[in-house]
């Protein structure tokens, strides 16, 4: 099948599209073509399925958490355990998919951006597995708060480049990765880690994460005999959320709830809640909600969670919000850390701080819906990388 990319540019209502230098169009067209070809090729799906079964550890299990649920209106709470995947988060789903595409395209070098380091670690892992050169761009600020993941990436053989421009966080790491890509596009694939960026990334990355929702929907149905009342996930760029939401979109009875990083609160201006506190605009190649000022300059985001500290969000989330199919609510740093502590102490599972935002949302929604309700939460990552930040937050001497 041949795709005329000039005609098919991924939009979600008014959102999505491509806002990039012309220099990247050819690479985006080739990528879209390679992805379309791969989708039509049963050996690609078989290869990815084999990797997920023998390397990622899929299907990931679901876990009921009744002791935690006592603090959430006694609702029935079920976790989809993406934290148990190899490398410790959902990020590996997308990375293995794209890395297989890179092999098909014959490129030898991948670049990636990372905030918390989870996507960087997953990318470095896939590069090691498939013999690719890997460079990870990471904001200097994030290399400090996630130093453990920096070391992990280096141990895996990747080069980590600290980005010193701008706010020195994820947004600036993406800028630098795009500059690298414009320069080295012939040899290099940009392994974007979230459902943002220019077409085909929002669609392709979503498709690679849909497996979360597909598995979880069947698992919950088997366990409870019915669909959950609500599906919850944290939203930075929005990859784990769209992965678990998407297979439920046609299930009208299921509320889809995205929890954004509210930082010190929306009113404080220090947050990363892009849909709750932003406006439509263009950032990093796509139209979506953006934290911006009156001149269209991106405003710095703030969150205790490096993985959610991003002033943009995937365009499909912007659309789902506008049409009312999904809801987005901010969770403050303090609320997230309280849920972090609660999950650790009631269930013996330490979540990533990103994931803790979804848990804090579950406490609120559980109280709202009560003990009859079933909530499915995407437990997107484990908290090992956050031990340092959490210890500091709770005043535990290191």
């Amino acid at each position, binding site marked *: 099948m041949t795709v005329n990319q*000039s005609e098919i540019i991924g939009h979600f209502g008014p959102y999505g599209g*491509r806002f990039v230098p012309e220099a990247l169009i*050819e690479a985006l067209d080739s990528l879209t073509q390679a992805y379309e070809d791969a989708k039509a090729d049963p050996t690609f799906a078989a290869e990815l399925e084999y990797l997920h079964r023998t390397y990622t550890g899929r299907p990931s299990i679901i876990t009921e958490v009744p002791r935690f649920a006592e603090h959430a209106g006694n609702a029935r709470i079920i976790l989809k355990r993406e934290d148990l995947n190899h490398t410790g988060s959902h990020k590996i789903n997308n990375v293995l998919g794209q890395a297989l595409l890179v092999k098909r395209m014959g490129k030898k070098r991948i670049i990636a951006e990372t905030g918390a380091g989870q996507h960087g670690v997953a990318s470095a892992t896939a590069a090691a597995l498939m013999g690719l050169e890997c460079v990870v761009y990471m904001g200097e600020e994030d290399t400090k708060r996630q130093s453990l993941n920096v070391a992990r990436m280096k141990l895996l053989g990747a080069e980590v480049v600290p980005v010193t421009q701008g706010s020195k966080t994820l947004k600036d790491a993406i800028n630098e990765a795009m500059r690298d890509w414009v320069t080295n596009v012939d040899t290099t694939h940009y392994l974007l880690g979230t459902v943002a960026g220019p077409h085909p990334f929002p669609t392709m990355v979503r498709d690679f994460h849909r497996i979360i929702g597909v598995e979880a929907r069947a698992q919950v149905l088997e366990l409870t005999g019915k669909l959950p009342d609500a599906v919850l996930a944290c939203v930075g760029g929005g990859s784990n959320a769209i992965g678990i939401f998407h297979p439920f979109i046609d299930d009208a009875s299921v509320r889809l709830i995205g929890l954004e990083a509210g930082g010190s609160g929306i009113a404080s201006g220090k947050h990363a809640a892009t849909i709750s506190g932003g406006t439509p605009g263009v950032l*990093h190649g796509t139209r979506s909600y*953006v934290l911006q000022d009156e001149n269209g300059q991106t405003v710095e985001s703030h969150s205790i969670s490096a993985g959610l500290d991003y002033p943009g969000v995937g365009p499909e989330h912007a659309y789902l919000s506008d049409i009312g199919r999904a809801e987005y609510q901010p969770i403050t740093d303090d609320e997230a850390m309280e849920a972090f502590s609660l999950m650790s102490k009631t269930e013996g599972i330490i979540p990533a701080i990103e994931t803790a935002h979804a848990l804090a949302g579950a406490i609120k929604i559980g109280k709202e819906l009560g003990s009859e309700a079933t909530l499915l939460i995407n437990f997107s990552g484990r908290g090992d990388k956050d031990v340092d930040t959490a210890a500091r937050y709770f005043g535990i001497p290191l």
Partner: protein
Amino acid sequence: MTPLSQLFEKTRAENRAALIGYLPAGFPSQQECIDAITAMVEGGVDAIEIGFPYSDPVMDGPIIQAAADLSLSQGTGAREVFSTLSAITALGTPAVVMTYWNPIERYGVENFAKSISEAGGSGVITPDLTIEEAGPWRAAVKSEEINSIFVVAPSTKDERLAQVTAECSGFIYAASLMGVTGTRTTVSSSARDLVGRIRKVSSTPVAVGLGVSTRDQAHEVAQYADGVIVGSAFIRLLQESQSMGEGLIRVKELAQSLAEGVRR
């Protein structure tokens, strides 16, 4: 016909390339930016590109990033960009604004085109606007009769080159290489190839940018292109100079030298 289009008719008649200088609005300060552009024009720069400083300039290298950051830290916004544009066009120099797309969308697409026109600007260069997303912009520039300038790259395939260049007026911005803005020791050979391919599909003037900083490079590009665009080299002189006075002298000298280069 915009002053920019008139300029290319004149330089074609003079059998030379036009020299186009770039500076971000508000760099090093709003008034000093206008002073530096005045020095460029006195040195022989034919037309000016005023950059709208942006927080996330993915097409720009470290020199322009630093200049944009400085300008933004002083509060430069749309108002300052348009007042700088007015000051330059008042000198009788053709001028365009170069901006990433989000500031246009935020200002309002129609209003942006209108404000360009009211400030006497000839048009706008949009480095991250693809033709697929350009519908509302196309209508706005048509209504205001200003030029719409897209950037094409060595990787742009022939079929798409025809589509993008058909949307350009004033000139076509040909990126000399795959990469970001900045000074380089040689002009990439891909520039000549790209301009050759553009000639086959368009009769609109072609200006080459990215990496041009010296008289010899300008002379080389002038052999095959209608315009030579220089940005980072001017900015670097202002960044390196001990005083604004020294900077203005050096900017004017570079402009004089480049102006000799574009004469074949």
